[in-house]
């Protein structure tokens, strides 16, 4: 039984051919990887995330190796797990095959493990084939909307199939040739080949073997050229994932004198990690499936966004061509700026626009150019990041482009000009006189902060709670509840300024930092340590983003605080109110900060409440449509996000929809009115429900 590499082909020794093929493949692969590295180097530097190593390692095991997020969609999860685990299981065999091209019968394993491993490998190869068949079904017959349908996806599936089948064929030939200790599939195949003469065996063996190694090397090189780059990059990407709550935005250093631009307008202005994210995108579309903007026909699809960023990036360091001058690359030849004969035109990353021209096929054909409306459509709900199995961060990329558009070009939805000016002058988005911020408290005997007397608890009312008539009722409900529970609290009065969430999320980092620093100064002046908020946006920003500027406070959302009071028995609920309630999870409270149970606990404590849950709840909650600064923008494209969510709530036939956020309250209330259901269904904050049961 001669090794395929020991034979001669047209006079050339098999080994020589094998060496050439191997070196060519590895050389090509290394070149491509080098280009991909150069592209990362073009991006801005951000420090490697090496904090909380234990958490990172455990996450890598849990999410990458155990494929935990993939199983949210069971069949797809099984399909991918089989292929992935199969890949890992077979890896040793693959390595052996390549080395056996030089050293016959080589093995890393001690002899007694040889046969068990072969059985193990054969079993997994069967499972891989099952996985591939499921994949064929999904891609060819079921055709879910979220996938991109490219020839390269089929190519990879076929490659994997070929690899499995050729391995069986080779094992079968070896078994037929009398080799011992092969796996059960090898033995089976060997029985099928028994009785074939040596010529036929060779005719099966040699092509199978060469096909196997060639497909293997081709596969290797296709990886960094396609969405299967994730095979190499996903495990590091999971390791380097962000551990902060989703939706937490990193500050810009606006005082950097050397900075010529802020935000991102060119792909090389992203950090290397953002570009690495783009490499890792598997085009699975799970993010797109969850996105409220996409669901309501806005130009934003998180999947397409990441693919477009990747495609745009690839243009910067084209393969097998001289580098495009002026993009910061070193050109490779070191001879200085030499004009290449054929200069591919670089597509801009962002162009003004409200609509894409209709695309053909399922794959985005934007040539790496994204229209601006894509970025404005985002509600910052984080459903995309929650769904992404490889932990791509969509929101920071969108925010980075918004920052460029707002700060550098002043090109953003016109409605926001008024919002910005109002917040600049009167510290609230409606521009109502800042002196009337605490008018709601008139006659209610609410304590104000006093210098020198640090308050035990600061009730941060927020703009909506101070000025919006509807939300003022929630403020008063909260104040009543706190008093009933004997909680000692104070308010800042008209020294409280908007926390800055709307302006930061629209992209006005400059105004945000001004507000943030002023608020921190005020809070520190009065010695505030504990803050109670009634708005998830205030909560999220004060808790997760104010520390970026030295504001470290203990922050609670009213649902957390109130459920705590209930548990401690400080609030007694006496009234029984029969109602059928469904609770809407606010994105900024729920998905970003994982506060799901406390609001539900509050409902459970109210006697007479029948609680029904919507399908899209908790981490899978569907946004009300007001996040990401969109509360301040007109929604003119597609259908309304809030109507989509309201329809889901109304389908449960509730008489009450409970919320914990002033934006959700407004959006759902509007949705109920639009559906002409305001007679039957009331939208109320949990605080209001509680206060009515006192």
């Amino acid at each position, binding site marked *: 039984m001669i090794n395929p590499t020991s034979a001669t082909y047209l006079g050339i020794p098999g080994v020589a051919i094998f060496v050439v093929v191997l070196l060519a493949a590895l050389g090509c692969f290394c070149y491509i990887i080098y280009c991909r590295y150069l592209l990362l180097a073009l991006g801005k530097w951000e420090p490697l995330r090496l904090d909380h190593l234990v958490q990172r390692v455990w996450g890598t095991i849990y999410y990458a190796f155990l494929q935990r997020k993939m199983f949210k969609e069971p069949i797809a999860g099984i399909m991918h797990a089989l292929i992935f685990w199969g890949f890992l299981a077979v890896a040793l065999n693959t390595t052996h095959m390549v080395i056996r091209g030089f050293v016959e019968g080589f093995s890393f394993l001690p002899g007694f493990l040889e046969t068990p491993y072969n059985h193990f490998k054969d079993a997994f190869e069967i499972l891989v084939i099952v996985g591939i068949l499921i994949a064929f079904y999904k891609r060819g017959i079921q055709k879910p909307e979220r996938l991109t349908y490219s020839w390269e996806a089929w190519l990879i599936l076929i490659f994997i199939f070929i690899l499995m089948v050729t391995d069986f064929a080779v094992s079968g030939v070896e078994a037929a040739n009398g080799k011992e200790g092969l796996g059960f599939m090898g033995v089976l195949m060997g029985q099928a080949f028994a009785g074939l003469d040596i010529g036929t065996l060779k005719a099966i063996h040699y092509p199978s073997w060469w096909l196997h190694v060639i497909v293997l090397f081709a596969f290797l090189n296709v990886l960094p050229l396609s969405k299967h780059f994730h095979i190499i990059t996903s495990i590091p990407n999971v390791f380097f994932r962000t551990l902060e709550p989703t939706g937490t935005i990193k500050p810009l250093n606006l005082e950097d004198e050397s900075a010529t631009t802020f935000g991102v307008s060119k792909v090389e202005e992203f950090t290397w990690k953002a570009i690495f994210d783009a490499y890792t995108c598997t085009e699975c579309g799970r993010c797109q499936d969850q996105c409220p903007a996409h669901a309501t026909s806005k130009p934003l699809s998180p999947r397409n966004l990441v693919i477009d960023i990747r495609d745009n990036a690839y243009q910067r360091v084209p393969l097998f061509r001289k580098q495009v001058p002026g993009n910061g690359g070193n050109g490779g030849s070191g001879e200085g700026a030499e004009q290449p004969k054929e200069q591919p035109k670089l597509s801009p990353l962002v162009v003004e626009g409200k609509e894409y021209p209709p695309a053909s096929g399922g794959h985005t054909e934007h040539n790496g150019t994204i229209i601006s409306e894509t970025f404005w459509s985002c509600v910052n709900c984080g459903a995309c990041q929650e769904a992404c199995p490889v932990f791509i961060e969509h929101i920071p990329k969108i925010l980075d482009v918004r920052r460029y558009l707002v700060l550098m070009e002043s090109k*953003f939805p*016109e409605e926001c*000009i008024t919002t*910005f000016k109002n917040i600049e002058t*009167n510290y609230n988005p409606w521009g109502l006189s800042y002196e009337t911020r605490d008018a709601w408290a008139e006659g209610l005997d609410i304590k104000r902060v006093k210098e020198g007397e640090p308050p035990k608890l600061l009730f941060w009312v927020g703009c909506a709670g101070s000025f919006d008539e509807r939300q003022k009722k929630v403020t008063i409900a909260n104040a009543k509840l706190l008093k009933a529970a004997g909680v000692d609290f104070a308010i800042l009065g008209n020294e409280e300024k908007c926390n800055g969430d709307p302006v930061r999320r629209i992209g006005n980092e*400059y105004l945000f930092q001004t507000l943030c620093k002023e608020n921190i100064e005020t809070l520190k002046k009065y010695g505030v340590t504990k803050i109670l908020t009634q708005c998830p946006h205030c909560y999220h920003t004060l808790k997760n983003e104010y520390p970026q500027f030295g504001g470290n406070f203990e922050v609670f959302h009213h649902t957390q605080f109130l459920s705590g009071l209930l548990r401690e028995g400080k609030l007694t609920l006496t009234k029984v109110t029969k109602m059928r309630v469904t609770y809407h999870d606010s994105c900024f409270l729920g998905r970003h900060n994982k506060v799901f149970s406390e609001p539900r606990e509050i409902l459970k404590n109210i006697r007479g409440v029948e609680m029904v849950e919507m399908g899209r709840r908790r981490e899978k909650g569907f946004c009300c449509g007001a996040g990401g600064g969109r509360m301040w923008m007109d929604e003119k494209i597609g259908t309304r996000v809030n109507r989509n969510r309201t329809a889901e709530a109304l389908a449960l036939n509730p008489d009450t929809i409970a919320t914990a956020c002033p934006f959700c309250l407004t959006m759902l209330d509007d949705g109920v009115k639009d559906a002409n259901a305001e007679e039957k269904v009331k939208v109320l904050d949990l605080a209001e429900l509680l206060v009515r049961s006192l």
Partner: protein
Amino acid sequence: MKVLVTVKRVPDPEAKLKVDPEGKGIVTQGLKFVVNPFDEIAIEEGLKMKEKHKAEVVLVSIGKKDSTEQLRTGLAMGADRAILVLTDDGADSEVVARILTKVYEMEKPDIVLMGKQAVDDDMNQAGQLLAEYLGIPQATFASKVELSADLKSAKVTREIDGGMETLEIQLPAVITADLRLNTPRYASLPGIMKAKTKPFKEIPAAELGVQVKPKVKILKLEEPPKRKGGIKVETVQELVLKLKNEAKVL
């Protein structure tokens, strides 16, 4: 081409104003000040002319040193230079127009763009006075301005009672801006940074040699009767009666 734009520092229109104890002015403690909204529109129109016709946009404000803030806002939007005519005494529309006449003689702009009125005194005079002193055309309450190709005249559409009137005026001229002329831009960060170093000249009013003293004398300011809290009425008849006799709006 050169455009001169007037900028006035006025109290934030949203602020709840109170008459001070002396009764001749308003309480300024804690009061926010902004660029007169109509002047902002004038600045924006000037910037549009800069973009389209390469005009130089010069801002001018008359007042105390704190008007610097408003001029910087205009510079951040994109204006080229600012002039602050310092005066401590109150200036009425006539004094303002006389000072502007001197600034006009200094700068010789092709167009003077002004807000139609300042939202503090609501006089709506300065632009027209200036035009008469200079003997040049005026187009007030402009909602659209189109310059001729040779930049020697302008077609201005004005909002007047019952409709829109279009005039053709020869330059130099005074144009006062109405609400619908444009939407003022928001200053970009580079704009804000550049504003800090753009040319800024302070001229004491005395140096301009304006002899006229204000003729308008404020004797007293009074707050109109406070709005009564909202009441709910039972019948439409009651509503109509109240609207007629109490509110006097019918």
